[in-house]
């Protein structure tokens, strides 16, 4: 209580007579000066802290903690010179104290007293010969004091005294960069990386920040350097500057002989390709991964090759993707999963290119490594590709023994593409109405309905029209189906027009679809007519003509109550009547 009254009185008195409160606070604080100094420093009261640190140093001139504290508070106050006096006194007492010498180097360099800084640095170096600390401290302090000339002098002095060409190279490189001497900085970074490979990525990070106008100077410096670090640094720099392909070319051309170093460079390069999705970058990524795979263990190499193949495939480089996938697929050491994945990917690449023969050869190579189901699945893919190209003999041979649902389905389609409608019907019926994927089953039933409606045993023209659908030439398919319809009985004609209408609407030609469906809506072809009305009703509803849609659906439901389309039609009917949400 007594202390509180005293403090209150002191503050009141201070306010009355205008004495700074800080000083009053001193009066009441009876703790040791060091504690008071640190407390004031924490509060940001640097002037008060300086007073207290000086009180400590009055008693103990070489007290490291007090001198360092004084440095911290005097520099922000712009009173660095005061520290120099304290340091001189301290060093008079203990001239071999390395901590004091380091502080002296920083202090004198930072205050522009280069000669004093040099003197203390040399003394420090004499005490601890062979270390670069004195010169680094000197240089850093000089840079902080914006005295780059002194910094360079410090580093050059150090290198000369230390007698190592690469000594202090990272520091010198940074000083040269600050000077705008990017060629010089490049040279120094190469020295640094040669001495310590870990500096390579620091060099790349620092040089990558060079202005675009300075890049030629850097390239020239790298090109003229004899350093083994020049190609990797150049490769990484080009990649960092956005030219992944050029960086990759340089890296691959100058891969270090040692596997470890090569892997380090390749991994670094792969990292540089991340985020670049353009084909050249993806292709470069593929090449880097492929090179990397060669230096890895067999198991890791397989996975990396798969990654490389995917990168090639993403780049549109089917040839390289194919080549690598074949290697992976044929590797007897490849785990089952990877081999299967590789072969599937490879086949996909080949089939996407339309290279049925090549796919067939790959298939032949990898067949022994596939299980029975996968063998049949891949064979069907290749067979379909052959059939699309008109090579029906080979297509048939590939699936001749396939008695699965998908096998019968494909055999039926192969017959259909040939115009053998009777054979197609037979196999499609054998495949049955079920499938693992509903859309396959629906598609198959649709084909059967078409074949039944056409009612012929053979028809080359229909085979050609279906082939056009298979190869994605929708316009050609629509034209062919229209032409076929002209020569068929009403049921077959309606079925062809119905299918052509679906193709037309799929490519956005609603007008053509409407015209085709209307012509399929004939009394003589009830199955097609029901579906045609449903399809027309959907178009009317999408066009906002609910009454027209309703009329079509009512006629459908009343006239074709047994049609397979009735459940769909009734649902649409509810919607256009507003009987269920989402309708109207």
């Amino acid at each position, binding site marked *: 209580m007594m202390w509180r009254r005293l403090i209150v009185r002191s503050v009141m008195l201070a306010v009355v007579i205008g004495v700074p409160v800080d000083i009053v606070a001193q009066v009441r604080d009876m703790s040791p000066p060091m504690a008071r100094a640190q407390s004031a420093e924490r509060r940001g009261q640097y002037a008060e802290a300086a007073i207290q640190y000086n009180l400590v140093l009055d008693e103990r001139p070489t007290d490291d903690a007090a001198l360092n504290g004084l440095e911290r508070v005097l520099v922000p106050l712009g009173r660095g010179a005061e520290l120099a006096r304290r340091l001189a006194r301290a060093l008079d007492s203990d001239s071999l104290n390395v901590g004091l010498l380091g502080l002296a180097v920083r202090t004198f360099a930072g205050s522009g007293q280069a000669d004093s800084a040099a003197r203390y640095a040399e003394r420090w170096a004499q005490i601890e010969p062979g270390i670069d600390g004195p010169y680094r401290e000197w240089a850093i302090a000089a840079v902080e004091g914006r005295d780059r000339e002194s910094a360079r002098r410090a580093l050059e002095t150090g290198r000369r005294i230390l007698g190592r060409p690469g000594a202090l190279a990272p520091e010198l490189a940074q000083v040269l960069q600050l000077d705008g001497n990017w060629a010089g900085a490049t040279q120094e970074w190469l020295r640094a990386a040669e001495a310590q490979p870990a500096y390579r990525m620091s060099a790349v990070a620092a040089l990558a920040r060079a202005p675009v106008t300075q890049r030629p100077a850097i390239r020239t410096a790298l090109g003229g350097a004899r350093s083994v670090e020049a190609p990797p640094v150049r490769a990484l720099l080009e990649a960092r500057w956005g030219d992944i392909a050029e960086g990759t070319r340089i890296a691959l051309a100058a891969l270090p002989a040692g596997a470890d170093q090569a892997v380090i460079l390749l991994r670094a390069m792969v990292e540089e390709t991340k985020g670049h999705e353009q084909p050249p970058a993806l292709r470069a990524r593929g090449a880097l991964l492929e090179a990397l795979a060669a230096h890895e263990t067999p198991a890791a190499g397989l996975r990396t090759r798969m990654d490389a193949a995917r990168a090639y495939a993403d780049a549109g480089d089917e040839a390289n993707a194919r080549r690598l996938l074949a290697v992976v697929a044929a590797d007897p050491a490849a785990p089952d999963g990877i081999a299967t994945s590789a072969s599937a990917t490879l086949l996909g690449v080949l089939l996407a290119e339309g290279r049925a023969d090549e796919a067939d050869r790959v298939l032949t190579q990898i067949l022994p490594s596939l299980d029975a189901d996968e063998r049949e699945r891949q064979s069907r893919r290749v067979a379909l590709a052959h059939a699309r190209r008109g090579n029906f003999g080979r297509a048939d041979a590939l699936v001749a023994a396939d008695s699965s649902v998908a096998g019968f389905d494909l055999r039926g389609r192969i017959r259909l593409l040939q115009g053998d409608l009777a054979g197609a019907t037979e196999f499609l019926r054998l495949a049955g109405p079920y499938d693992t994927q509903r859309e396959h089953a629906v598609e198959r039933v649709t084909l059967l309905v078409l074949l039944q409606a056409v009612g012929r045993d053979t028809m080359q023209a229909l085979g050609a029209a279906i082939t056009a659908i298979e190869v994605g030439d929708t316009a050609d398919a629509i034209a062919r189906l229209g032409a076929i319809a002209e020569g068929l009985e009403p049921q077959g004609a309606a079925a062809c027009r119905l299918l052509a209408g679906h193709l037309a609407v799929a490519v956005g030609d609603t007008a053509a679809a409407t015209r085709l469906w209307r012509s399929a809506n004939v009394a003589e072809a009830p199955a097609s007519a029901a579906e045609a009305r449903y399809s027309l009703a959907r178009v009317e509803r999408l066009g906002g003509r609910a009454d027209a849609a309703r009329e079509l659906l009512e006629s459908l*439901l*009343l006239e074709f*109550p047994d049609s397979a389309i009735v459940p769909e039609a*009734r649902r649409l009917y*509810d919607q256009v009547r*507003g*009987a*269920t949400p*989402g309708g109207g």
Partner: protein
Amino acid sequence: MMDRRDFIRAGATAGALWIPAPRRILSALGRGASFVVPMDEAQTNHLKAYGVAFRALERGERGEWLLNYRGGAFLFPASEGLQRDAILNGVSIEAADDVSAATIRGEVQATNADAVPLEKAPKVAVYAPPDAAPWDDAVTMVLQYAGIKYDRVWDPEVIGDGLAPFDWLHLHHEDFTGQFSKFVINYAGSPWLQAMMDLNRGTAQRLGYPNVPAVKHAVASRIAAFVDRGGFLFAMCTATETLDLALASEGVDIAAAYADGTPMNPDAAAQLDWSRAFAFSGASLELSPSLAVFSDIDGHQVNGINRQPLGAFSLFNFAAKIDPVPSMLVQNHRQVIPDFYGLTTSFRRTAIKPGVTVLADEAGAPWVKYIHGDRGQGTWTFFGGHDPEDPQHAIGDAPTDLSLHPHSPGYRLILNNVLFPAAKKKELKT
């Protein structure tokens, strides 16, 4: 292959023909032929079957409701119109010649079944705000799905005696205590709540009432008068409970301050006059303005601290020849139906007045689900819960698509009520 049940059914309906190609039926039948609309498992769309029957009555055709016969089947004279309607809506109908029809009538006569004449399509009114979508309310949703016409009425029409032309009135989740379903505190700031409050307050002001509770009390009295004069009332969800609370609280402030500017009378429960109510008596009021609970009438208390889990409720069996009205209301192809929540889900047995007919309850539970009674010259039916096919219904849920539930037994109960006023009144013995 015909199983035993099909065989028995085929024997029971000897002479009835399935209709694979309906266009041919009429020509195959002679004069006096009938259509049976089965309502048992043979029906392909139970809900739309009610619409087919309703529209037949609208066209002036007369039929019969065969209570306790094949799930509550309908029998109509064969007509092109009914046949067309059934085909369009996917409703199963069976053709019956004179012999078959006679066989059916014999079976009805010999068993706990009855044939109730259906004479005219009732005029249906639904009490709902003018901006409500059909999908907000289970009844309008099923009327829309079945294709049964209805008119919408709201406070101005009810106050202006606009109920007179209607036979049947439906109420759903309206809060007749005028407290905005007691959502005001918990949903403060929600746009839908604000819109609901603005609409109700504006309506009350235009009609000359000082606040929403006042106009809702007046509406409740008009509805009671509608039933007294011979109207049919069907209420669901919270409309059941709050209608009775509004009627019983004439002159007593049971509304929270946010509804009428004054807090609820703390002694309100003791001052309620239950003789004015339809179904309930002796209930305790929920005093908290922030709990979306009105009283202890509801057994499930979905928003209360004593919320009860859902079970299943069972429909009672009634003697069709003695109690045709309750029989009509419980016609179904299922006897046990999964329960579903509403702001009012069920009715505590102890809160139900003597004389009220329980149509469905949960065995062993202290609550019932579905009740019916007479009032004056009219009748009323209360059905707890919000949406029979959305048991956990919450604000903002997607609307139920009834095309996915064409056999919903819960929705059938609603449609029984819609068709019930079509039955010839002299046949009603309850």
